[in-house]
């Protein structure tokens, strides 16, 4: 088959941030549009896509010959962010830090480099526009297409089905001993699926060949797991995976402007907006009831964050939940209800009409949880499917990493098209480039962050401590004034008396440990 010309040079699976950037960069590298096929499950493209969502970073600037005037013309780029808030919410209180930066307006005249740095986005809309522009540039876009299998050279695709890859075997064990139906197949077939040359895709029984397949399928990465870029068991471990549950609430442009202190855009800028993220310690009562009813997970503290972003005439609001911290007895969507009802949040969304509900996984794996390989003979994995997300609570990046990985892959693939070598070794340059890029640099430099974010302290006593401290330092109710240090010592003592868990959590060694991790954020 390799002797014949492939149907396409490149087939890209998924037209999200990673896939669309890869296609655009391929065009920039001189690959003909009609040699690139982009397939997407959504119809129209973007219909399956959802993010929090803020797009940070100016990755799109480099692609503006394909996506001209993207900041103003893309209907899903809602507001640029010049107002960032980081909060700590406990059941009673909220302590929220706020920054409002003139330099983020990007109009010059400030002491900091003046640049718009982030935008609220609605992905069903942004991605439909990206697809439209790629199509105008000559790329084949096929919406409403789900890829069942990858085409492996020398392997008849009818010798197994997509279901065999993701269904437990009859003789499967439980937990770590899970086995998939495919493992009981002829070892030659299994080996071809895991290590053979990938040469295109299979959809509805029909093979389309390509020299390279780019897997940009997103966080629910069925193909990446099935085709052994990662072991299914490794990928199925829910440690390090987050579920985002979200609402879009319509409030009207004017109301958002006045409620959040934003201003309307002009010819050069979209309207300005606010991005808030918060650590949540607001589920005490829910957790206690859950522990009582389901002792099997008693003591498990839901580690969750909340966000609120302004779009042009809507708000994006939601919670992210670390799935390995969810106790039995708490529904993820009920956590969204608790967040929406919090006294610091409720007034901000009051009077709004919910216009959409949705949920999506976030692959905030950290380094140790990324797929074990990102390159195979004839295929690469980019974006969320590759686990390229970083967050330390204050900085949350993923969409820009996706774009960057797409660009890096495209540059390597363009070279491979030139040389005609699509081997794992040749395509492996992508992994090297990724390792050398700011994406992996960030992930490596801040590798302790995942541990810090998985520490119960941030979802129990830390938000409570912050809120109560601030309250006591700034209030005036006739009590004797003491220094901040004394106030902190006193509060710590008081809180440690409450229960054994807090006593241990606020112990000196634990504080030192947290501080050590916190320094590396």
């Amino acid at each position, binding site marked *: 088959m390799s002797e014949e010309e492939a149907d396409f040079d490149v087939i890209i699976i998924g037209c999200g941030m990673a896939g669309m950037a890869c296609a655009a960069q391929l065009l920039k590298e001189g690959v003909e549009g009609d040699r690139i096929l982009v397939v997407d499950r959504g119809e129209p493209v973007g219909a399956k896509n959802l*993010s929090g969502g803020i797009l940070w970073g100016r990755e799109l600037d480099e692609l503006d010959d394909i996506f001209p005037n993207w900041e103003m013309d893309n209907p*899903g780029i809602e507001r640029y962010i010049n107002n960032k808030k980081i909060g700590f919410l406990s059941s009673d209180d909220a302590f929220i830090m706020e920054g409002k930066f003139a330099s983020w307006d990007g109009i010059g005249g400030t002491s900091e480099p003046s640049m718009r740095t982030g935008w609220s986005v609605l992905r069903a809309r942004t991605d439909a526009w990206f697809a439209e522009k790629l199509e105008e540039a000559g790329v084949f876009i096929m919406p409403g297409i789900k890829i069942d299998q990858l085409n492996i050279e020398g392997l008849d695709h009818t010798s197994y089905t997509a279901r065999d890859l993701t269904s437990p075997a009859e003789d499967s064990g439980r937990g770590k001993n899970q086995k998939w139906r495919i493992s009981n197949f002829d070892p030659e077939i299994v080996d071809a699926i895991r290590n053979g040359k990938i040469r295109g895709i299979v959809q509805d029984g029909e093979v389309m060949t390509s020299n390279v397949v780019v897997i940009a399928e997103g966080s*629910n990465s069925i193909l990446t797991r099935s085709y052994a870029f990662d072991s299914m068991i490794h990928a199925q471990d829910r440690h390090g995976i987050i579920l985002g549950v979200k609402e879009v609430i319509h409030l009207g442009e004017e109301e958002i402007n006045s409620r959040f202190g934003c201003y309307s855009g002009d010819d050069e800028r979209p309207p300005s907006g606010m991005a808030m993220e918060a650590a949540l310690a607001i589920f005490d009562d829910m957790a206690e009831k859950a522990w009582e009813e389901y002792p099997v997970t008693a003591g498990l503290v839901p580690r969750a964050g909340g966000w609120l972003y302004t779009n042009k005439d809507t708000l994006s609001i939601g919670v992210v939940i670390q799935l390995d911290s*969810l106790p039995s007895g708490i529904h993820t969507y009920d956590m969204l209800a608790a967040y929406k009802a919090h006294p610091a949040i409720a007034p901000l969304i009051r009077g709004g009409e919910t216009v959409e509900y949705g949920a999506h996984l976030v692959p905030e794996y950290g380094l140790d949880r990324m797929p074990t390989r990102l390159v195979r003979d004839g295929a690469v994995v980019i974006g969320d499917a590759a686990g390229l997300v970083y967050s330390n609570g204050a900085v949350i990046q993923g969409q820009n990493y996706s774009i960057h990985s797409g660009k890096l892959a495209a540059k390597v693939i363009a070279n491979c098209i030139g040389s005609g070598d699509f081997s794992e070794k040749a395509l492996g340059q992508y992994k090297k480039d990724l390792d050398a890029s700011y994406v992996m640099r960030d992930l490596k430099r801040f590798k302790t962050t995942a541990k810090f974010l998985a520490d119960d302290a941030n979802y129990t006593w830390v938000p409570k401590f912050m809120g109560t401290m601030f309250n006591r330092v700034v209030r005036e109710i006739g009590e004797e004034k003491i220094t901040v240090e004394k106030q902190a010592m006193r509060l710590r003592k008081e809180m440690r008396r409450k229960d054994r868990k807090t006593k241990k959590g606020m112990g000196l060694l634990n504080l030192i440990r947290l501080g050590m991790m916190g320094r590396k954020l």
Partner: protein
Amino acid sequence: MTEKAKIGLFEYDVKNGLGLIGYNVDEHEHAHIIVDTKKCGDCDSMMCVWGCPAQCYQFRDVGLDEMKFQYEDCVECGTCFLMCTDGALSWNHPRGGFGITYTYG
């Protein structure tokens, strides 16, 4: 505020939320998630029930003796596939053209 919310227990009207998403539901024979509910019997954590943001799984939480699964409301997030430790789940995306449609995202 409901009585439950007053004591710190909140309930989200998930059916209302799901009603805001566009669906094109495929026929039963093409259901994208298949649950072998026989394997769910002695599962005591029922993590699919708690994790699923679309209430596709109902079991002892609502007083049922048997796992009741429906794929129709699924938002295709993949959480249940990660949550199940009993090998009861077979997961795939819906066929092209079927499943959810977000208009905001």
